[in-house]
């Protein structure tokens, strides 16, 4: 074993990967064992499958197509607040879904700002519930993601090409044809595929804005079979369907899905000469303005309503907030215990295959895993007693693919740059982690921990499956308040949840970069 690039012990990494795979696979096996194939899929199930795919296709197409003019405008304009806007585009990543839904309801809902405006000019009100509501929420979350991915691609174009275009006085259309179309052809399919996969397993959006026979996703159908009918066999069967759809698509699209760079590096804006005046300028201003409004107005609504409803927030909300903080911290601890050794193992191997292990969590939906574990735990212990640990664990698994993508590249760099030095010094085991890897990777580890904390804090998924009436995380508590039409109290809870999610992200991200050496 003398000739490895660095003396990172691979055993912990392999055991972590095996543990993750085993926990997910046993859940899937439990589901497989419980599903009754004789009953088959009913018409409601087929309708759920159709709706799941339909809404995911529309969400992916709309998000990606809208992202083109927005990213194009951001790539060629320089203006005050541009950096802030690009940062804002990263916010939906750590924004709890239920909070965004509340914000969208405030703007587009029955008594929302949009309908108030429509009533002023004597138009019929629009309803946010159903297919278009689900798509609206998905676009809210994925338009920024798609825009960032496209912007990232735009920034890989060498400056010389735009200089060349300026020298030849190419028209905006010619620039689009010669530079941007080839770029888009490369990046658009992968971006759309990513959004499609994300929307396939969407649960909280469908739970709040969908529902009913015509707007139920498979993920939501699992939940309903489970909670309302307590029909474990049907939940298991639907879980298999979900695994087939989401897992199959994820596996097929894996090769074209672009690397998600969630970090910085977007503030660099190129000097451009094309499309700076005239129609192009008007269009750019329009797209940037509309996107900003679309992203900001729901958040503004959350804050204003939250402040108003803050006093009406019941004590249960504060209790749930405490629970959520503990769950989030536990998630972070579990995640780091898994992700760090795994990243160490992956980084010492040739590029490729081993990264896929982390994607297992993305392919299997949270509710599928939750259902599987419920079936396993049920005969032994009361599953509702384990609601919180299970939630924390599933949250950590969900964050794992993203976290590996954040940590593995700098880990590889560290191994490449300092591997030989650590070997001449005979560093291995804990010394290597303590003195080289952890200090070198601290910013990325902090960022990853913050991201996991925020995701876990805002997650409304498995907890909805497992929770008994007297246990609740903050998102679940908020959902219950919304269900009881206590919108003021829900708005107060939303504000607290928003603050906690952004807060936990900020604390860990900042902590990672505190006094960090370049």
């Amino acid at each position: 074993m003398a000739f490895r690039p660095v003396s990172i012990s691979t055993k912990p990494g392999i055991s972590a990967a095996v543990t993750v795979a085993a926990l997910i696979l046993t859940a899937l096996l439990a589901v497989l064992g419980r599903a009754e194939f004789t009953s088959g899929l009913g018409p409601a199930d087929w309708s759920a499958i159709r709706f799941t795919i339909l809404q995911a296709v529309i969400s992916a197409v709309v998000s990606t197509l809208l992202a083109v003019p927005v990213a194009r405008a951001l790539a060629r304009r320089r203006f005050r607040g541009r950096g802030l806007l690009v940062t804002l585009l990263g916010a939906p990543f750590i924004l709890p879904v239920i909070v965004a839904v509340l914000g969208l309801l405030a703007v587009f809902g029955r008594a929302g700002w949009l309908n108030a405006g429509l009533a002023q000019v004597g138009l019929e009100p629009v309803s946010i519930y159903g297919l278009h509501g689900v798509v609206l929420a998905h676009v809210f979350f994925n338009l920024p993601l798609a825009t960032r991915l496209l912007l990232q691609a735009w920034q890989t174009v060498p400056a010389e090409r735009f200089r060349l275009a300026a020298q030849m006085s190419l028209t905006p259309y010619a620039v689009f044809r010669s530079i941007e179309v080839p770029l888009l052809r490369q990046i658009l399919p992968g971006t759309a595929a990513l959004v499609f996969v994300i929307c396939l397993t969407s649960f909280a959006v469908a739970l709040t804005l969908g529902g009913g026979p015509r707007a139920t996703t498979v993920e939501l159908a699992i939940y309903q079979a489970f909670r309302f009918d307590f029909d474990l066999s049907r939940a298991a069967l639907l879980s298999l369907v979900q695994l087939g759809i989401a897992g199959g698509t994820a596996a097929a699209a894996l090769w074209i899905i672009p690397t998600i760079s969630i970090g910085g590096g977007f503030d660099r804006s190129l000097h451009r000469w094309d499309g700076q005046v005239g129609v192009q300028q008007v269009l750019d201003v329009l797209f940037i303005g509309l996107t900003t409004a679309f992203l900001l107005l729901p958040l503004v609504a959350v804050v204003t309503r939250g402040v108003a409803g803050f006093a009406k927030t019941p004590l249960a909300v504060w209790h749930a907030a405490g629970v959520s903080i503990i769950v989030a911290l536990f998630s972070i601890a579990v995640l780091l215990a898994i992700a760090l050794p795994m990243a160490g193992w992956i980084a010492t191997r040739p590029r490729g295959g081993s990264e896929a292990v982390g994607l297992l969590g993305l392919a299997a939906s949270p509710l599928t895993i939750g259902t599987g574990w419920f079936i396993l735990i049920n005969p032994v212990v009361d599953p509702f007693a384990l609601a919180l640990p299970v939630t924390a664990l599933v949250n950590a698994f969900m964050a794992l693919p993203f976290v590996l993508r954040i940590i593995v590249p700098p880990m590889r760099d560290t191994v490449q740059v300092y591997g030989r030095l650590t070997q001449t010094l005979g560093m291995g085991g804990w010394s290597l982690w303590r003195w080289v890897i952890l200090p070198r990777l601290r910013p990325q580890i902090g960022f990853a921990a913050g991201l996991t904390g925020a995701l876990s804090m805002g997650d409304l998924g498995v907890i909805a499956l497992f929770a008994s009436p007297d246990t609740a995380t903050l998102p679940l508590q908020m959902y219950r308040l919304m269900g009881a039409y206590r919108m003021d109290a829900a708005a107060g809870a939303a504000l607290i949840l928003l603050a906690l999610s952004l807060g936990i992200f900020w604390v860990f991200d900042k902590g990672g970069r505190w006094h960090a050496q370049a």
Partner: protein
Amino acid sequence: MLRLEEAEIAQDTFTLRADLSIEQTRKYAVIGPSGAGKSTLLSALCGFIPLSTGRLLWQDTDITTFAPGDRPMTMLFQDNNLFPHLSIQQNVGLGLRPDLRLSIDEKDRVLNALSRVGLSAFAQRKPGALSGGQQSRAALARVLVQARPFVLLDEPFAALGPALRNEMLDLVAELITETKATLIMVTHAPDDVRRIADEVIFVANGVAAKPQPAKALMDNPPQELRDYLG
């Protein structure tokens, strides 16, 4: 004595053959055209690249498969010889203990090494706050506390200006003599060879030749070496 016995080092399509002995306390320069395999030779000695055939012996012990840290040698690379996030003192301390749990006595040795290379005042600084020459000195201080019988240099001073480089070479020569270590140094410059080396290992055409006395060789180079020196 270090013996490389009928060794062959294979890397992708490139192979380097070597069959040579290195005497203790002498100073060797490894010269040859770019891409001839000078760094490969050092990497193989240090254990970063495996031998595909042959053996590496040290005082009759077969160390062919020893991990880099278990070999009687230490190496300075072209760059990245210091961890930028650790202080100079910590960087040097790692040469004594990889877990940095230094005893009082070991701490003294670190400080002595730092003062020997003239960096006492910089012990708490990070490498980024030091000049290129000072960084080289810090790396040398680490080599000093490691106190291995063989010190391998893979052009660590290539980025320094001529005057500074000569100063470093003189310091290396002094330290090597003081500690009775053996120096094996890759270089491009004939002047370096004359300045510091006792013996020369000429690497060309996939072969690392047996060491030859430096002065005689440089005064009367064979055709191959003459082609290289120009």
